[in-house]
């Protein structure tokens, strides 16, 4: 039996540091920018850690969660979302979603690390956390469950990614399933961290844990589209028929999920308007200090513009998808900010009618907070661009001998066989039964 030999040195599609060296100067500049951003952010964050956060951060006694928590939530929401949307393919067997799995799981891990970088600069005693979370756990604390489950989630996602690279689909599917279950549990617990604070009516209730899951799925769809189309800009070769179909499928599900979030947001406002505790905060979102955040970023950039553009793109205009999802990522960031900060602007003593707390509280992020947040974002950016090159656009190359009459499917990486007189494309159509 004769066959063509595929280069085994490129096992797992790994092109190594050499791929980075071969990158164009512009590409290197972009990566360098993100590395600098990470280092600068980390330096400023460490400075804040040493001089004491209360000297340099804008958070106060009453607004004690600020930009860093918003950025952390943005990262972990996106991470969970990438896991949820990609699991439709490689866990539940939705054929159309399969080609996006590798990039999605990779980015999910990267976003999780980015989130952890950011939370490191918000927790006052991050080193104590490692000890006391283990030896003095409080099982009724959502914060404890959130931290613990996210740790487990990260481990499962990394094992899953290993098996995805190793082409062990049975184990990657199993690990993906556990990762999904734990990720959903962790993420709804994050919602419950807010939703179970009775003193904060804007957050309190089952709404946030549920909203967080759907919102995560929407962010995940958006992130997959953004990073896939950006990958296509970097290396057009990553697109093939299966990938195009996958982008189309993810576009469809993202349009659906944006509609779900519009529905959620509408009812949050309508029901909140008749609640004494929420009405004041909602008015500040609708007409007050947070109106620009809400209308321009959250509603326009985060929901309606991408909804319109994604429908216009029909799932095959990649430039349009790239722009709309890129703007949507910014909108989604403000969506997180609009949950965290407005939830705290009404003092707990406001309803008592006292002079001291008659006004809503103010919060403005400081330079240190912005830079510490950017350290995580910089890391994510760098890891993405490095990953695109080193992992060869997340394409698989089978490290085995391809028999005669067979070829490596550019979409799924498996070996397909052509029948008599059939072209590769026809064989692929028959093999995947998707057209």
């Amino acid at each position, binding site marked *: 039996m004769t066959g063509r030999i595929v280069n085994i040195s490129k096992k797992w599609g790994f092109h190594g540091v050499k791929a980075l060296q071969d990158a164009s100067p512009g590409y290197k500049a972009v990566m360098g920018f993100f590395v600098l951003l990470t280092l600068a952010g980390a330096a400023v964050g460490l400075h804040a850690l040493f001089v*004491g*956060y*209360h000297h340099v951060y804008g958070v106060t*006694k*009453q607004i*004690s*969660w600020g930009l860093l928590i918003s950025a952390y939530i943005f990262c972990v929401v996106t991470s969970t979302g990438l896991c949820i949307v990609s699991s439709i393919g490689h866990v539940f067997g939705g054929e159309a979603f399969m080609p996006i799995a590798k990039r999605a799981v990779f980015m999910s891990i990267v976003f999780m690390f980015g989130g952890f970088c950011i939370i490191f600069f918000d*927790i*006052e*005693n*991050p080193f*104590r*956390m490692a000890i*006391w*979370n283990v030896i*003095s*756990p*409080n099982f*009724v*604390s*959502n*914060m*404890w469950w959130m*931290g613990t489950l996210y740790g487990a989630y990260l481990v499962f996602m990394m094992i899953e990614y290993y098996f995805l690279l190793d082409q062990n689909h049975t184990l990657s599917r199993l690990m993906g399933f556990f990762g999904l279950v734990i990720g959903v549990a962790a993420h709804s617990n994050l919602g419950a*961290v807010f939703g*179970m*604070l*009775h*003193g*904060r009516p804007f957050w309190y209730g089952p709404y946030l844990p549920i909203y967080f899951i759907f919102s995560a799925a929407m962010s995940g769809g958006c992130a997959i589209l953004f990073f896939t189309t950006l990958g296509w800009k970097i290396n057009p070769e990553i697109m093939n028929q299966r990938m195009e179909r996958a982008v189309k499928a993810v576009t469809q599900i993202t349009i659906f999920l944006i509609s779900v979030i519009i529905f959620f947001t509408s009812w949050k406002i309508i029901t909140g308007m008749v609640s004494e505790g929420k009405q004041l905060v909602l008015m500040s979102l609708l007409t007050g200090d947070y109106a620009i955040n809400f209308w321009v970023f959250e509603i326009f950039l985060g929901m309606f513009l991408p909804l319109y553009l994604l429908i216009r793109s029909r799932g095959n205009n990649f430039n349009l998808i790239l722009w709309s999802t890129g703007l949507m990522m910014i909108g989604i960031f403000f969506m997180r900010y609009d949950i965290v900060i407005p939830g*705290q602007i009404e*003092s*707990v*003593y406001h*309803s*008592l*009618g*006292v*002079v*001291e*707390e008659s006004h809503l509280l103010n919060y403005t992020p400081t330079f240190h907070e912005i830079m510490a947040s950017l350290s995580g974002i910089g890391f994510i950016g760098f890891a993405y661009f490095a990953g695109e090159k080193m992992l060869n656009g997340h394409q698989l190359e089978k490290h085995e001998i391809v028999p005669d009459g067979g070829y490596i499917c550019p979409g799924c990486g498996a070996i397909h066989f052509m029948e008599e007189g059939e072209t590769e494309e026809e064989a692929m159509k028959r093999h995947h039964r998707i057209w």
Partner: protein
Amino acid sequence: MKFPKINFDTLKNEGTGSITARERRKFLKLGLGIAGVYAGGKILSLTSLIGTAHASGGGAELIKKYPYNPHYSMVIRQSLCIDCEKCVDACNETNHVPEYGYRTRILTKKYSGTLDKQVEFIPVLCNHCNNAPCVRACPTKATYKDPVTGIVRMESKKCIGCKTCMLACPYDARYFSAERRAVDKCDFCWDKRLSKGEKQTGCSAACPTGARTFGNLTDPENIVYKLVHQLEEKVWVIRPADDTKPNIFYMKGNMRSVDNILNEQKFKYFDPDKA
């Protein structure tokens, strides 16, 4: 099978005379119980009692109901507070509270159109809730309910500084202390005074008017017990809807009730240590 023939239209009214007094009482009790006003429920449903509320008397029965012994509590008589801030100064000095934080403070409420006074001062501090949201929220049990006294205390070395407790607290009673590298809060001066045998907290000892009264809610002879268990005085807590079962009770504290309880003592020079 035969049924007795009863025609309801022609049936004679038996009158209320045939119902026994006992049955009537049962019926009334049921109605009042459902309405929630049964035997003083309107006052004591706000207090930390778990289970049934009692109107008055039955001291021995009440003691069993409080979950801690001594069950430390503070009663704040709002009308007596003059906003001199001696309590805040005493607290800051006793507990080395930094400038950017506070363990207690006094809020001001203004009224217009009232004839007797236009301003009222409301001292606030940690409510040492029986159902404390901060204790539930803490991931590492760094804050906990003391099993003996019911004081919500901090074990600073376990605090990771996530600040969830600060947001969980519906009384805004916590701040992050950079000096302690942990969240700090009122502990009824346990570390600085009570554990050293003193009977009063810094703030209550410093209060010149008796607006802050500190004591043991399980002791029927204690001033706090006497203030809370009055049918004629309205006693309330802040943010009752959060159902945290707080241990800081508020009342107006008018002259009559104060005189009654303190056996003719002048409230302005009231010494809480006197029997």
